[in-house]
């Protein structure tokens, strides 16, 4: 991360709620720590508790399809907006609860609980 970017994030820390996803590790850094992009390459991925979609959008470049699910409608609206802005086409976001996943049995290869459980 560049010095400017780190400075910006530091500044964000002053003004936004402390649980902001902006203050978390960068998605690809996190993915690298787990084992690298091979973990999701060509896979059907679910980002459970996706929030504003930062992680789902980051792994979309490697995955076959990415589903993002979160109970917060505002966060999902923000995620959809970010997906439109970035032109990512293999990501779908939906409002829903983890206790009733709207997917058929065996439909996914990777489920990610990133700062969710």
């Amino acid at each position, binding site marked *: 991360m560049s010095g400017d970017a780190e400075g910006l994030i*530091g500044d964000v820390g002053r003004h936004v709620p402390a649980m902001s996803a902006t203050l978390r590790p960068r998605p690809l850094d996190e993915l690298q720590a*787990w084992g690298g992009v091979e*973990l999701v390459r060509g896979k059907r991925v679910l980002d459970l508790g996706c929030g504003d979609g930062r992680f789902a959008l980051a792994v979309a470049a490697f995955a076959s399809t990415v589903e993002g699910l979160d109970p917060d409608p505002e966060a999902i609206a923000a995620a959809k907006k970010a997906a439109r802005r970035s032109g990512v086409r293999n990501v779908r976001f939906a409002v829903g609860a983890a206790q009733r996943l709207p997917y058929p049995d065996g439909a996914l290869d990777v489920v990610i609980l990133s*700062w969710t459980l």
Partner: protein
Amino acid sequence: MVDALREVHRVLAARGILVDARPDSRVLAYAEGRRARGFQRFGEVKTSRFAIAIDRASDLAIGRVVRERLFKRKRRGRFWHRVPFDSLGDLRQYLSEHLRFVHRAKWVVEAATRRRYTNGQFVIRRAVRYEILVPSPRSRRALVPSVVAAAHAKHSE
């Protein structure tokens, strides 16, 4: 949490994986000052009781689905993440708002040192743990709740 993990087991393909990643409350976080050659430790930051209780509940949920043989633990690890701040004041402000941490760091440097570097760049370095789990083949034990539910439904007819 256990219900959610059971649902995850249902939607995962046979060779799928589940990644559980979250801050590691079992180790301290550190307040560090940025120096020309790395970082100087200024203080330690404990996790709040509230966050420890939530993490404990999450650990128990994972343990339960492993005991139920829905998942098998495959690999786990930890990495460190730095949250940057423009000054010591910014770091303190962050701590005062943050739900995961106690609101004050335990300083390990003298007050004079903190005053000297108060406008320097700081970070909070915290641990993030992750665990990779794979679904086990649906065991008889895992099927028991649905069998019991079916039996209840039949009995009530």
